[in-house]
């Protein structure tokens, strides 16, 4: 039995100019916030921006962006809806607000299915929000989305720095290009990555982000979005 799906992935992504995988391999460092707001900012600047939430068991981009009513349509594949200017795909469209208990092998299968049937169309950027850890989704990304560039997130906390160090070493050996490193939830004591050749900038803890959750217009007015916007200048 031959699984035909991987043969068509490259074609599905052919209209996408750049693919940016937001990672950092640790949980709770702001990967989803940065991925979602980055897509929002890129769309606002007039780029064609798409967002894929690949954290299937912990999907959150739809909550951050307040995407409740948008729905994919079925045509020659699944057409992701355009929500707040972003072409968006997430497992949340299929799970009706319930928990998604998937083993890693199921995560792989579901990712393969979405990559095979999602018609992204023409995009300047596809931002991919990665789950924590180096598990099936991370390894599949290297295998199937060969053009992905890493946008690595860290915080000044020892635990985040240690995770990033060991993971970057691995992904460098795997020849996955590193686009840059962002420090989030910055404090006076910076992480050692601020002196890394690929360091892009810092984002402070912004207490106003929480209340803006679910409200894109409000998010765009936060200091978080302002600071991320400066970092995102790397895409101009």
């Amino acid at each position: 039995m031959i699984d035909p799906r991987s043969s068509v992935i490259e074609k599905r992504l052919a209209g996408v100019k750049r693919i940016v995988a937001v990672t950092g391999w640790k949980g709770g460092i702001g990967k989803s916030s940065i991925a979602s707001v980055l897509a929002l900012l890129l769309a606002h600047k007039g780029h064609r921006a798409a967002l894929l939430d690949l954290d299937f068991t912990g999907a959150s981009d739809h909550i951050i962006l307040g995407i409740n009513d948008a729905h994919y349509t079925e045509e020659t594949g699944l057409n992701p809806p355009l929500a707040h200017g972003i072409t968006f795909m997430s497992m949340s469209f299929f799970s009706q607000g319930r928990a998604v208990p998937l083993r890693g092998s199921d995560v792989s299968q579901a990712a393969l299915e979405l990559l095979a049937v999602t018609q992204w169309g023409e995009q300047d950027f596809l931002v991919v929000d990665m789950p924590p850890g180096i598990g099936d989704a991370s390894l599949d990304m290297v295998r199937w989305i060969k053009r992905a560039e890493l946008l690595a997130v860290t915080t000044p906390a020892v635990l985040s720095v240690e995770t990033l160090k060991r993971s970057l070493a691995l992904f460098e050996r795997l020849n996955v290009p590193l686009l840059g490193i962002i420090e989030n939830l910055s404090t006076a004591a910076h992480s050692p990555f601020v002196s890394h050749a690929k360091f892009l900038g810092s984002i402070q803890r912004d207490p106003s982000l929480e209340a803006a959750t679910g409200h894109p217009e409000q998010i765009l007015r936060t200091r978080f979005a302002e600071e991320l916007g400066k970092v995102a200048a790397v895409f101009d």
Partner: protein
Amino acid sequence: MHEWALAEAVIASAAETARQQKMSVVEEIVLNIGELQSIDAEMFASLVKNQLTQAEPLLQDAEVRVVRGEAAFECQACKKEFSEQDAKVSEEEREAIHFVPEMAHVYMRCPACGSPDFSIVRGRGVFIQEITGQP
């Protein structure tokens, strides 16, 4: 008809396989359509056939045959084996499973112990079961 996208994958994959096996012409493609995804087998076969007419010469004259694959599940918690019939899912849930069969873990439960931690042993979705042709 998001099935069109899967049909396109079938064509691409069949061409790849035929070339690997150094065929000069493909005579038959046998598809296995897993029950879990609720894809209409006739409809899917005709989608594949339609795309074949525009495909490269290698594939253009291939017959398309369809075999339906029954779905089977095995619970990892209690080892119970069960079938689709044992699961009750609504229309809306069935649609989610149609697009992403792994959503079965969200909407189905092991009929013996209630766990969502089962494996889809067979009958998940679309596979190429066999390709025959001439060298």
